[in-house]
């Protein structure tokens, strides 16, 4: 199948180096301590953060740092054909783990010993790149909850199809079977916190694809900063400062 037309356009009309439209909104779940919606094209996820609060299960308490927990769930209607999945299947457990480890790397957990932070991500629409969208949403929600972080984490994926590196794969491109590189970075510190790839890729091309994904992460980071700044301005305005 042809994923990039001779004119250099992808199936959904994007250029190879173009991202889908991103949109974010802070404070969508009123009762959570922090929450955000993040959309990348047709992929839409909600993240809610509860905490820092008392550890619910005493045996999990850590005496010198905060306990970070994460749960990823998909809505029944999020995929094209409706399917009822049991909670806690292997895929969602793996993604929960990935998100938890990525967020743990940026939260200043040593400032909140003997406490617990819960991150819940809920996929409303899945169209490829849910991992990245979840991490971006979780960053925003953590920032909204006012949890101290080293830097924001942003994530983006890139792939390689028809000998072209493609940024931000959608579902059709994702299921084409080509390599899919998901990168998460701390943009200010310039460090990679998440890197996953399936399928195989020559080393020099991998460098290109990863570079592309990193550029994507930086673009997301700029947007997230804008959203956070706008949100802070609104808060300031409401306080009458």
């Amino acid at each position, binding site marked *: 199948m042809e994923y990039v037309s001779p004119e250099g356009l992808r199936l959904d009309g994007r250029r190879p180096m173009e991202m889908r439209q991103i949109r974010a909104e802070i404070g*969508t*779940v*009123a*009762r*959570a301590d922090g*929450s955000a919606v993040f959309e990348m094209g*047709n992929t839409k996820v*909600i*993240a*809610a953060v*509860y905490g820092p609060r008392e550890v*619910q299960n005493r045996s999990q308490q850590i005496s010198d740092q905060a306990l970070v927990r994460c*749960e990823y*769930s998909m*809505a*029944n*209607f*999020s*995929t*094209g*054909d*409706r399917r*009822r999945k049991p*909670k*806690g299947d292997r895929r969602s457990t793996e993604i929960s783990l990935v998100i938890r480890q990525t967020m743990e790397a940026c939260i200043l957990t040593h400032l909140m010993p003997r406490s617990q932070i*819960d991150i*819940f*991500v*809920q996929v*409303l*629409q899945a169209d490829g790149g849910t991992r990245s969208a979840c991490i971006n949403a979780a960053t925003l929600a953590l920032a909204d909850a006012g949890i101290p972080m080293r830097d924001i984490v942003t994530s983006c994926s890139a792939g390689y199809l028809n000998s072209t590196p493609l940024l931000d794969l959608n579902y059709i491109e994702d299921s084409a079977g080509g390599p899919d590189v998901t990168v998460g970075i701390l943009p200010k510190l310039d460090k990679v916190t998440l890197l996953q790839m399936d399928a195989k890729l020559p080393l020099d091309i991998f460098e290109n694809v990863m570079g592309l994904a990193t550029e994507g992460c930086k673009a997301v980071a700029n947007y997230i900063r804008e959203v956070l700044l706008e949100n802070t301005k609104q808060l300031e305005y409401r306080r009458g400062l």
Partner: protein
Amino acid sequence: MVGLSVGEKHFIQGGIAQDLRSDGRKRLTYRPIYVETGVIPQAHGSARIRLGATDVIASVKGELGKPSALQPDKGKIAIYVDCSPTAAPMFEGRGGEELSTELSVALQRCLLGGKSGAGSGIDPSSLVIVEGKVCWDLYIDGLVISSDGNLLDALGAAIKAALSNTGIPKVNVASETSGDEQPEVNISDEEFLRFDTSGIPVIVTLTKVGRHNIVDATSEEESQMSSAISISINRKGRICGLTKRGGAGLDPSIILDMISVAKHVSEQLIDKLDSEIAAAEADEEES
């Protein structure tokens, strides 16, 4: 779940006794309802309802299936509700399952009528394409995103809005079919069937706190309830289903009183909901 001090409990109960609740409402007023339709593009119909801090999404998806042998002239409708852990940390893992099942069953009872399909808000025989062979299976999925009490009413309203937003593709059947063969069908992507949603009831939950009944309780108020009755009532004022929750027993005459109060409240709710749904649909068409 809700940690309240003795003073706060007294404040909530006292407010209800004096017909002035903590958020300034009277006992029988709803919080403002916000309706948004077409929020899930992959579904055949969807809606999001916000009622104060309660936030739910309902989606309707149709799939071609085979009618059951016992009822060859009827399609199947199923309602499933999921409580997302984003709504409350206690829904993590399997924690939300009990509430999800309770809500699914209550909704099924209130909106879909009995096993025969009689009294259903949607006529299941309108879902049949070829009798005994092909029908639409309608899957209604509810998702609780944020929970601040009164989930059942909100989900009922969301399902009503989602169904009026639903367009099921028209199916053309190739004419010659014989015997046990599955007929060939053609799903049209231009023509859509709409449902008549005027018969779908709304659900009104009356929560008994102390000696008084309130509608649209927040989760703080729900924590003070002795019992609650959810009554689904359609536009004609008929009762379509009833569920009682909570431990305390109720006097039969009080139940009848509560039903007549619910009937009165439901008239305003239906009008309000219908106008909000119409406004949301108009908004969606514009954008």
